[in-house]
């Protein structure tokens, strides 16, 4: 009975702590909450600071993992049966359409939300170290960039699985961009596809990547990401708070060293809190953080469920390598690249500069490389940490915003304004009649 009680207490916690000690115990003694701080600053709970985009990404990842399990039971990763099994999930399996819709919408939304999370972190300068000891926020930013790329790749590998025309040609276009990389491009594509064409090998490779390898990779990076957030003393807004406090020259502030849950003696393994007046600026994580996480989770689940009821999940004809739809488009989050590829294909007399190299490899490669090293190039002062649109970072924010606008504009053009033969059409213009496949 006592043992049961202990297990119960390690899995649940009080939402209504009666004392400070209760509140601390809820976090420290609990398996599910032990990675939370005992106290959080009020500022880092603010919706307007972070928009909770990271939490929403994590919730979406959770929904994807959970809905992915029944789908894995129902889906057959074989060229002969993949399409039929997805068709059955959509039309025959009880609630299959709902589970598939939840999975698909969460995936699309996760791509968007993870991207927005990155944008938020950039505009708030949250990848920068503050004044506390042992911070390594730039490392966490790089982990985040890796997670974003993994998210794109997760979505992309999932895109092929229905094995319909949409899936087949989107992946054809997407993987052909990879082959434009100099020297190794064709080899990369060959390895990715397990051959020269999208066939059984490709389907199985994408399936294993999608269901095991990439989720495990993202989960590992997620754990590292959260661990770093703790080691870096919480969100960047905490550093801003401690700076402001110093400027106010308040009476000396309690500085604490938590030894690792009291297990280790001495100061070898420790977490130093930023120098923040706890009484004034912090609240107990239980219930103030847990309650907000619950609300964000519920809201995300509710929105996804609602969307799943309202938005139909497409399933086109079965994949047919002999019939290319016109236009053939990559997944929406790669359409800015496809648009760039078209726009950068230049003919100089007999000589053609292949746009796939510029738009497909050089530009995105350069952007990702820049993203990864940016924290070390950003020399702005510590006052710009954790502040939206800090004056000291105006120039880089404007450049970032410019790139953002171009990427979004190219995405919009590629998604909505391109018709057959990748010709430009306004939304109100009708596309010309295309001859049928036969």
């Amino acid at each position, binding site marked *: 009975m006592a043992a049961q009680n202990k297990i119960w207490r390690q899995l649940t916690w009080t939402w209504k702590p009666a004392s400070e000690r209760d509140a601390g115990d809820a976090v420290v003694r609990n398996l599910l909450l032990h990675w939370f701080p005992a106290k959080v600053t009020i500022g880092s709970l603010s919706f307007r600071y972070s928009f909770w985009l990271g939490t929403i990404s994590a919730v979406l990842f959770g929904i994807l993992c*959970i809905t992915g399990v029944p789908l894995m*039971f129902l889906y057959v990763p074989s060229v002969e049966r993949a399409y039929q099994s997805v068709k*059955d999930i959509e039309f*025959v*399996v*009880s609630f*299959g359409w709902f589970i598939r819709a939840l999975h698909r919408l969460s995936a699309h939304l996760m791509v968007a939300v993870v991207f927005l999370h990155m944008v938020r972190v950039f505009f708030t300068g949250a990848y920068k170290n503050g004044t506390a000891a042992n911070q390594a926020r730039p490392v966490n930013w790089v982990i985040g960039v890796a997670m974003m790329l993994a998210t794109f790749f997760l979505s992309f590998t999932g895109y092929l699985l229905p094995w319909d025309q949409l899936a087949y040609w989107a992946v054809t276009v997407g993987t052909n961009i990879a082959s434009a990389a100099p020297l190794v491009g064709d080899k990369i594509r060959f390895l990715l596809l397990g051959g020269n064409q999208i066939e059984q090998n490709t389907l199985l490779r994408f399936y294993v990547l999608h269901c095991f390898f990439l989720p495990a990779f993202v989960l590992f990076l997620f754990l590292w990401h959260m661990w770093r957030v703790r080691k870096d003393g919480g969100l960047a807004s905490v550093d801003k708070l401690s700076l402001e406090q110093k400027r106010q020259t308040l009476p000396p502030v309690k500085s604490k060293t938590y030894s690792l849950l009291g297990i280790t003696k001495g100061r070898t393994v420790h977490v130093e809190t930023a120098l923040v007046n706890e009484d004034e600026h912090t609240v107990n994580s239980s219930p103030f953080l847990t309650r907000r996480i619950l609300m964000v989770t*519920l809201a995300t689940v509710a929105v996804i469920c609602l969307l799943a009821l309202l938005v139909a999940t497409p399933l086109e004809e079965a994949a047919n390598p002999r019939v290319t739809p016109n236009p053939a488009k990559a997944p929406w989050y790669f359409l800015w690249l496809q648009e760039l590829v078209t726009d950068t294909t230049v003919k100089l007399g007999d000589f053609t500069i292949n746009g796939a190299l510029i738009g497909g490899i050089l530009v995105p490669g350069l952007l990702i490389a820049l993203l990864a090293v940016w924290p070390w190039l950003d020399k702005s002062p510590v006052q710009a940490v954790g502040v939206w649109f800090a004056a000291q970072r105006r120039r880089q924010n404007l450049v970032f915003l410019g790139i953002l606008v171009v990427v979004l504009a190219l995405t919009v053009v590629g998604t909505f304004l391109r018709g057959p033969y990748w010709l430009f059409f306004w939304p109100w213009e009708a596309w010309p009649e295309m001859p049928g496949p036969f």
Partner: protein
Amino acid sequence: MKSQTEASARGDSRRGWLHKLGIGGLLAGVTGMGYAFVRALVPNVLYEAPQRFKAGTPDQFPEGATFLEDQRVFIVREQRTFHAISAACTHLGCTVKMVSLNQPKKVAIGGREVEETREFHCPCHGSKYYGDGTNFAGPAPKPLACYRVELAPEDGQLMVNLDEPVSRGFRLTV
């Protein structure tokens, strides 16, 4: 003082009620979702081979037992009568082999003396069955199953229904 306590008690109970409603809603949602996920794993359509199949016209079958490999069933013809005996051993499901006897042997089945020309022997654990499917040796707990045989009205083929076991005395007379 008393009214205050009552008020606070009322407030508490309202809050308590809302709290229970919230938890209840959450549980209902999780349960519903869980039901949907589990229900999705119960097949609505099966792509298995049909249990009712056409085996061919009666004149295609020679006298005696013919083994249909795909359906694991023996079609037994005795002049103008037909019946079907399952080839799945009732012990652990191995496929039994037919053994034709060189000399007819007289055996007692259920107190009745019958002349046997064939037996069914299981290669896995040595169970043995008489020609009519009655088990007489080895670990088999019961006789081989017999299935309904009928004539398809449209083309006169023998139609076997593996979903419909019949008694061992069942015979289709053509």
